[in-house]
């Protein structure tokens, strides 16, 4: 599962139309990558599809950075 970050990065680059080098573990979706709350919902939907998992609403609320997403996805993908 070491490629989780790379797969997340690819989705973020495509969805938010940002430069790949801006997508770091510590990058905040909203503050650094220009996402709005609806973009975040769509990103989570895309993660769910890519990794075939379901990310519960209360977990979604805690996903602020790219690293948060990677951590949660790793925890959900066995």
């Amino acid at each position, binding site marked *: 599962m070491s490629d989780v970050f790379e797969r997340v990065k690819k989705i973020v680059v495509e969805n938010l139309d940002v430069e790949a080098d801006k997508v770091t573990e510590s990058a905040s979706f909203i503050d650094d990558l220009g996402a709005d709350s*609806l973009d975040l*919902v*769509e990103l989570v*939907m895309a993660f769910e599809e890519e990794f075939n998992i379901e990310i519960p609403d209360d977990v979604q609320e805690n996903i602020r950075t790219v690293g948060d997403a990677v951590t949660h996805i790793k925890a959900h993908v066995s």
Partner: protein
Amino acid sequence: MFDLSGRTALVTGASGGIGSAIAKSLSEAGAKVALSGTREGVLEEVRSGLPGEGVVVTANLSDAESVDSLVGRAEEALGGGLDILVANAGITRDKLLMQMKPEDFDDVMNVNLGSYYRLTKSVVRGMMKRRHGRIIGITSIVGVTGNPGQANYCASKAGMIGFTKALAQEVASRGITANCIAPGFIESPMTDVLPDAQKEALLGQIPSGKLGQGSDIASAAVYLASSEAAYVTGQTLHVNGGMAMI
């Protein structure tokens, strides 16, 4: 006039007067329609009368699980994601407030407004992905004007209007519109049984001098579902013969 070819639609309350008229008009415009309601036999009859393709998916809107699964079942039966949702189902439990029991209030709010929340929530996800969607809530003139004996119903219908405005703002950037249609007095089995004196009094309040038809509401729904209405969102279209001008 408006072409809905290749579009799919779900109409709730499709066995009733207004719901069946909406289903028929969407079908005439080319949409493939899923008919939902509790009475399977009546829904089958409506389906067989459609000019185009249609499917029947039963649902009891007072049952949360049944509502939550409805969009998925409709999409499966239609063989694709939903483009158009017409939330038309509703119930009444008319009583003066002084006589209204908590369950009279809760049932009406739950079926009319609660199911609207559940249905729109489950349909909007796919619409966001596809960057296209039309959500149409059938509310009522009394949600805006009030009506004695219907505090619960009026609250639920006014609630739909506010809900739709919030939803419209949330999803507008994704090519999804959300609007309401507010019918006035529409000829139906419900209005047929009114005493003549009451009918006369009613007609006196309607400048066009007649009750509306289901097809009047259906035409409004076809417009709001069309590509031509892409720039119309968060609105309530009043179809009432001039009975209230808002």
